[in-house]
């Protein structure tokens, strides 16, 4: 019984660890913080493994834990959602050096998005979740996910155009 659980969890970890870590990295912009967050997330998942409702998606359940882990972690470090948002905006608003490459400019553009839009971008492009999985994770309809993502991408495009016009 214990061995089965261990194998099952190990397999689940292998399938999802890259996604979880990428999602954590998107939020923290730090490799070490992302590792800490991912570790904490899996620890919580391990403890609550039996509390998962089998009718839902295990991955969506994991990312719901990942979201909560992020929130708690930043709060514990004295960086609540607002502070985090402000720091991300400040970081993104820093004067762009002329040699800034396209990827870095885009990364900063993502940092300037609202928390809601940024999160959906992180879940879609960082964690590589489908619309359906994002909807389950955030507990919103799929249509909401689509519209939020569309608005987020539009905002990114507009900001990139601004950067291009400035340079």
């Amino acid at each position, binding site marked *: 019984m214990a061995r089965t659980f*261990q194998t099952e969890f*190990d397999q689940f*970890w*292998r399938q999802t*660890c*890259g996604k979880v*870590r*990428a999602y954590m*990295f*998107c939020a923290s912009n730090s*490799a070490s913080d*992302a*590792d800490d967050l991912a570790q904490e997330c899996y620890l919580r998942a391990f403890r609550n493994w039996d509390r998962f409702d089998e009718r839902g998606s295990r991955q969506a359940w994991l990312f719901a834990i990942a979201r909560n882990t992020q929130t708690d972690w930043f709060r514990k470090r004295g960086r609540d959602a607002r502070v985090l948002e402000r720091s991300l905006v400040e970081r993104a608003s820093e004067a762009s050096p002329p040699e800034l490459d*396209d*990827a*870095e400019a*885009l*990364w900063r553009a*993502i940092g300037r998005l609202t928390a809601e839009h940024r999160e959906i*971008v*992180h879940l*879609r*492009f*960082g964690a590589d979740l*489908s*619309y359906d999985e994002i909807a389950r994770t955030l507990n919103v309809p799929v249509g909401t996910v*689509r*519209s939020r*993502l*569309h608005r987020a*991408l*539009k905002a*990114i*495009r507009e900001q*990139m155009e601004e950067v291009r016009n400035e340079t």
Partner: protein
Amino acid sequence: MKRETIERLAMDRALGELNEDAATLFETYLAEHAEARQWAEPMTQTCIRTRQAIAQKTQPSSAQLAPPKPFRVDWSALARWAAVIAVAAILGAAIGRRSAPSPTPEPETVIVRTVPRQAGAEGWRRVLGETEEGFWQTKAVAMLQSQPREVQRSTESGPSLWDRYRQFRKERSREKVY
């Protein structure tokens, strides 16, 4: 179709969220409508570049993640280590037994007999012959040289350098006296 609809469909297609039939229909529509193509293209590009930018940031680090090895008792490794420790213990005991001193060391007595020189008597006679007590002195020296001495050799600790020097001085003075 409206611009927003075109953009959303372009986004869905770029993210692989459109099914095959819907994607084919959308492609056909874009092929027929140049304006729709112009609206769709920037959204497609934004999706591709966003994915690339995030992957560039996150993938190298996530690739470093190695899957954890579940803790399992490796009995064969344990047995190997146990064998190595046992061999080392046996070797250590054997070496220790060979190099240890005997348990009850007994001081041995060695009799050292000073052999008179070949030309001892004549030599002494030649040296001391001219003195007044030539005969007696020669006899005393000869007796002294042929007298066996007992030297006790102890395994505990040998005479110190100072003791050996004192003994040497004593013998020298004795020789001078005779």
